[in-house]
């Protein structure tokens, strides 16, 4: 064990057992997985992406590029978890990735020997030719060699929650600056949400030995949180990582709800996705320490100095026994002091800065020079080169690297704001963040605790008009630039997660990749899951150096959301499976289910597709039996899913005249008319019926699919195009249950249901509409027919739909009354040649459907002008036809293509396609509808109907689309 016996913020009274690659280990409550691994002496945690080099824990935060582990097993396995971000929990199982059979002995490390082929642009250069090799050789090779974790391929058994929150001030990060900002805003009575990704608030105060107001940093942080808890308008969300900034001042965050609990309560979500809308957002996101590019800087035992400080001070876990610090900023000296205080022998501080003395005292010997090499599988020695060029080897097992700081400003880039280079800070900053965004503390370059606190307090005061409290002007220190040690090579890494080296950047620049954007694509610098948080600025500084430019001239990449990886499950939340969309049930759903209905999804609706009866061999049997019943007796079918819209007002008739391509104003009260709506571009939009209930009152029907779109279209016409029309429209689809009663016995059945209404042909003829009462409630009856039989549709209030169906069934038992579903409905309408979804494909004109004569030439209506374009009336257009197999035993499949007989089957000869198919009980064979070029002139022609997908072809005869009762005698009877 490398854990100190005392100190730190872990609870030694609460030990926690966990395993790493199957090995049992022990940590304490308060540990992260990373600190526990360090305390257990683990040096190698995985292998690198391309070269499979052994890697150790490099950082203490969300920027960790090496310690990406898979947690748990089976369906709950969570790959690419960053060990410093994982709270240790009893029984946790963690596994290394990207290595086999173990991280210490990895067979793929042979990749390191072939490193020349993995240089910059290796995907482009190596795997070019021959093309056939891609599928069989290259891709499997790359996938096996370069994987970053594996998904379980099983359904996620966990649940995820979603919350929306609103705030005056969102504070991101609960370090010194964030806590100060949150307190300042809370004291002004603001609604504050403070989010912090750590399990414990405090940020760097937990890692550094510092005092605020005479109290230790961690203690001060606890007191601040205690005060925030007393403000009832303040919400503190720990274990919550902000991942994106979006328009409208909205932000996305994910809270770990139960991941850290050994035994979460049943029903507790694993994570919660927060959508936060905040007038002001204060980013106290701190800064990320920069690495230094030197040969061997990825060896296990080389660690960021700030991370060393975290593990030693917060977790009392010692990453080494003999250490050196390679630093070019004063913070490295503090780390050396902390190491010494923890009992680690500090061999040397290596500082490449010449001239100015550091602002802190050195607790170890200072060598003015650079580290130029590291040795050992895990670090054993380093080679140091001093200013005079002399080298010496130092025996150490830990090298802390302090290369300066990059303020964490990525969230501003989410809204398109490019970072700006600050010369004094030698870092990218956000001088002019987007509206409502403010960077404070280390995120604004105010690295020392007192400056960060002043900055946060001052910016909150300024934000809410309390200029008196604005902090003094900050004097920026003069800091060292990103450092690439001269002479370092292909083992000097700038992007640890994607194995991008100094040599790769140099080569890419030589090959002409001069912009940071090109460099990114060519070398994959910054394209890993950490988005280049660690090494990207270093890489861009190197590119600038190679071009002899300043870093400001080269610039850097804009970060994009998500800031840290987010589980897809958290984004989906409860919207999975059947909960993806709402389900709409028809008013007679329960009745249909009791009748043995099979249901099909029609948009959001569940519609009865067919009803299985004893003796039905399959669904076709059921549908054919139901269709026969309609043709010979009477069938009943719930058609409530069709859109129903009431249009009322003095100008209602005029409005409908402009919406439909056929005349509507002339429709008499008590009558129904079939209507077709065009889009303004002249193609068919929707069709349905228009019933005039009274002079100034209509009820129209739409297709099920277009119910919403037609309502929107009518509102557009009324509000935008013709706001002067005095009419109103309202969807009543949900208000009425509507049932089709179809077949020769339909009049008899309805007469039993409505004995007081004269339903004789003379009293209530075809296309009549009437209002009455049934069962003490309003009732509407329309004599319309989709099936081609004598038929009606009866509408009653939704709540009475079920009772209506039961009553019709009872009253019709001796009339052959049969429930029919969507499949029988399809058979009936195909036999009659009525267009539906397959034909109304957005590319057909009224003429294409054989409805050209309906189109009025006497009035303006939506779509008239553009429907008259020559191409929309061209004689070559594909028009609706009927099709029947020459061999009556053949069955045709929908989507098949229609070609002339005797020509090669190719797209050139394609003359149309089959849009709908059905087995016709009337014809005793399969029939089809199709769209066929010049179809009206080809009646009687034999065509070749081909499905290259199903590898079928058959000859079919072209006919009129109306297979049954072309004169329409039945429906008028």
């Amino acid at each position, binding site marked *: 064990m490398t854990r100190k016996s005392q100190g730190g913020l872990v609870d030694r009274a609460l030990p926690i057992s966990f395993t790493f690659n199957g090995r049992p280990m022990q940590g304490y409550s308060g540990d992260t997985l990373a600190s526990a691994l360090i305390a257990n002496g683990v040096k190698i945690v995985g292998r690198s992406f391309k070269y499979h080099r052994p890697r150790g824990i490099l950082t203490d935060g969300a920027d960790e590029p090496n310690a990406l582990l898979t947690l748990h097993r089976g369906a709950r396995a969570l790959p690419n978890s960053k060990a410093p971000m994982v709270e240790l929990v009893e029984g946790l199982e963690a596994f290394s990735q990207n290595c086999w059979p173990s991280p210490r002995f990895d067979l793929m490390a042979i990749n390191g020997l072939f490193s020349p082929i993995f240089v910059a642009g290796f995907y482009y250069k190596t795997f070019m030719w021959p093309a056939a090799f891609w599928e069989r050789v290259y891709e499997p090779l790359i996938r096996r060699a370069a994987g970053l974790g594996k998904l379980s391929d099983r359904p996620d058994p966990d649940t995820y929650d979603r919350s929306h929150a609103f705030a005056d001030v969102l504070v991101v990060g609960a370090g010194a600056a964030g806590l100060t900002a949150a307190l300042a805003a809370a004291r002004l009575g603001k609604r504050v949400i403070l989010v912090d990704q750590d399990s414990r608030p405090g940020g760097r105060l937990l890692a550094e030995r510092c005092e605020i107001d005479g109290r230790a940093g961690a203690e001060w942080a606890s007191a601040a949180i205690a005060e925030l808890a007393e403000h009832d308008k303040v919400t503190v969300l720990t274990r919550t990582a902000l991942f994106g900034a979006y*328009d*409208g*001042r*909205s932000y996305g965050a994910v809270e770990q709800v139960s991941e850290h609990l050994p035994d979460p309560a049943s029903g507790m979500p694993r994570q919660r996705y927060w959508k936060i*809308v905040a007038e002001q957002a204060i980013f106290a996101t701190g800064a990320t320490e920069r690495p230094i590019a030197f040969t061997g800087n990825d060896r296990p035992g080389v660690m960021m100095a700030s991370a060393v400080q975290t593990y030693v001070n917060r977790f009392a876990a010692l990453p080494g026994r003999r250490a050196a610090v390679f630093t070019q900023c004063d913070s490295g000296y503090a780390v050396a002091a902390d190491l010494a205080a923890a009992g680690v022998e500090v061999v040397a501080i290596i500082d490449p800065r010449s001239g100015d003395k550091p602002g802190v005292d050195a607790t170890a010997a200072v060598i003015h020079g650079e580290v130029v090499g590291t040795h050992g599988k895990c670090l054993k020695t380093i080679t140091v080169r001093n200013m005079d060029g002399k080298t010496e080897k130092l025996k150490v097992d830990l090298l802390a690297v302090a290369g300066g700081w990059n303020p964490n400003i990525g969230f501003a880039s989410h*809204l*398109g704001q490019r970072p700006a280079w600050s010369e004094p800070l030698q870092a990218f900053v956000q001088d002019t963040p987007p509206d409502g965004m403010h960077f404070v503390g280390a995120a604004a370059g105010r690295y020392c605790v007192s400056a960060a606190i002043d900055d946060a307090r001052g910016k909150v005061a300024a934000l809410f008009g309390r200029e008196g409290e604005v902090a003094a002007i900050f004097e920026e220190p003069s800091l060292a630039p990103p450092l690439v040690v001269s002479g370092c090579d292909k083992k000097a890494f700038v992007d640890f997660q994607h194995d991008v080296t100094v040599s790769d950047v140099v080569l890419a620049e030589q090959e002409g990749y001069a912009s940071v954007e090109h460099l990114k694509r060519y070398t994959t610098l910054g394209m890993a899951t950490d988005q280049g948080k660690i090494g990207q600025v270093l890489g861009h500084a190197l590119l600038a150096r190679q071009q002899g430019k300043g870093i400001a001239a080269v610039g850097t990449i804009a970060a994009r959301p998500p800031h840290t990886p987010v589980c897809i499950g958290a984004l989906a939340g409860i919207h999975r499976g059947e909960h993806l969309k709402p389900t709409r049930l028809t008013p007679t759903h329960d009745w249909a289910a009791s009748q043995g209905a099979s249901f099909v999804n029609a948009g959001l609706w569940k519609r009865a597709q067919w009803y299985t009866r004893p003796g039905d061999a399959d669904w076709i049997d059921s549908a054919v039996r139901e269709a026969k019943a309609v043709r010979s007796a009477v069938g009943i079918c719930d058609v409530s899913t069709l859109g129903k819209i009431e249009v009322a007002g003095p100008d209602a008739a005029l409005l409908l005249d402009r919406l439909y391509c056929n005349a509507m104003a002339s429709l008499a009260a008590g009558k129904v008319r079939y209507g077709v709506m065009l889009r*303004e*571009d002249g193609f068919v939009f929707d069709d349905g019926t228009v019933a005039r209930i009274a002079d100034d009152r209509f009820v129209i029907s739409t297709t099920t699919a277009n119910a*919403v779109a037609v*309502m*929107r279209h009518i*509102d*557009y016409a009324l*509000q*935008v*195009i013709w*706001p002067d029309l005095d009419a109103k429209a309202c969807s009543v689809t949900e208000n009425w249950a509507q049932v089709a009663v179809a077949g020769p016995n339909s009049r008899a059945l309805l007469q039993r249901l409505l004995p007081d209404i004269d339903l004789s042909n003379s009293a209530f003829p075809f296309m009549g509409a009437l209002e009455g009462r049934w069962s003490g409630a309003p009732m509407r009856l329309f004599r319309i027919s989709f099936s081609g039989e004598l038929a009606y549709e009866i509408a009653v209030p939704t709540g009475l739909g079920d009772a209506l169906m039961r009553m019709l069934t009872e009253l019709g038992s001796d009339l052959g009354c049969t429930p029919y579903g969507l499949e029988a409905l399809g058979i009936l309408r195909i036999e009659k040649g009525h267009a539906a979804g397959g034909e109304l494909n957005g590319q057909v004109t009224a003429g294409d459907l054989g409805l050209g004569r309906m189109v009025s030439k006497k009035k*303006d209506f939506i779509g*008239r*002008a*553009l429907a*008259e*374009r020559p191409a929309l009336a061209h004689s070559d257009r594909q028009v609706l036809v009927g099709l029947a197999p020459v061999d009556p035993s053949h069955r045709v499949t929908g989507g098949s293509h229609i070609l002339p007989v005797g020509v090669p089957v190719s797209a050139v000869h394609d003359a149309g396609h089959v849009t709908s198919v059905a087995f016709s009980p009337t014809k005793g064979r399969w029939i089809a509808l199709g769209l066929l070029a010049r179809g009206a002139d080809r009646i009687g022609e034999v065509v070749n109907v081909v499905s290259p997908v199903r590898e079928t072809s058959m000859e079919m005869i072209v006919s009129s689309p109306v297979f049954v009762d072309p004169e329409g005698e039945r429906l008028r009877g």
Partner: protein
Amino acid sequence: MIIDCPHCGSRDSGEFFMRGQAAGPRPEYADGQDAFAVYVYDRTNLAGMQREHWYHAAGCRSWLVVERDTRSHVVGSVAIAGKAVA
């Protein structure tokens, strides 16, 4: 995006249906096909503040003219469409 519906207040863009850049006034049939072609098809594909038609489908069912910056989703003025016809 958050849209300030004049009837309903600040609402999430998920409640709305976006039709596209607001077309000019609809021509009449007598104006001919060219006028309709411009009305139906001509759009500027603007990078900047654009007048658009939005429908508050899950709210008051009003068609609105919303000014939106196509680069940033910053919302400018919001007005009831019928009254905003220029």
